[in-house]
């Protein structure tokens, strides 16, 4: 029952990730694409944690999830500054 709930949540999040990818590809402005990629990053973090609990190897996947969250945050900040000012630094 526990494994079934983990698998259902994981598969649902993967389907929602591909639905968000539609907005990342089609989206009319760059801001729409960045918002979609930000959501995909958060979903990837959650899917990594779910995979860690499914395979019973939580420590490794937890570290990867924390680093991925950090990289996703830096990507959004960098692209927002680029859209706003034209340069990153």
């Amino acid at each position, binding site marked *: *029952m*526990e494994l079934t*709930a*983990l698998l*259902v*949540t994981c598969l*649902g*999040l993967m389907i*929602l990730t591909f*639905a*968000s990818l*539609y*907005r990342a590809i089609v989206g009319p*402005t760059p*801001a*729409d694409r*960045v*918002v*979609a990629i*930000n*959501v995909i990053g*958060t*979903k990837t*973090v*959650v899917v990594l*944690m*779910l995979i860690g*609990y499914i395979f*019973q190897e*939580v*420590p490794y996947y*937890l570290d990867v*999830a*924390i680093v991925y*969250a*950090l990289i996703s*945050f830096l990507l*959004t*900040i960098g*692209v*927002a*500054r680029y*859209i*706003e000012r034209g340069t990153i630094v």
Partner: protein
Amino acid sequence: MIATVIGIAFLLGGLFFFTAGTVGLLRFPDALTRMHATTKCDTLGAGMVLVGLTFFEGGSMYLVLKVILLIVFLWVTTPAAAHCMARAVYRTQGRDKHAGGN
């Protein structure tokens, strides 16, 4: 047993919020409203799924603390990133469209 049921309820609630955020991302008309929907998805959805994971077997107390650290990190960084993104959208393309009265 009761912990497993509570964890599964949290997982399904988080999946509901992720679904609502993705529907908002696909159907809202412009970038700022899409950002509004996806920020709910990031905070409530990811928070509920990760809290629900801490009820399951497979992690020690130390790992539960690290999962809570990940939740706090997401809750701090996601609104900050959404704020930067919304400011960029407002300053570049939205001033005439979103000013609301000017």
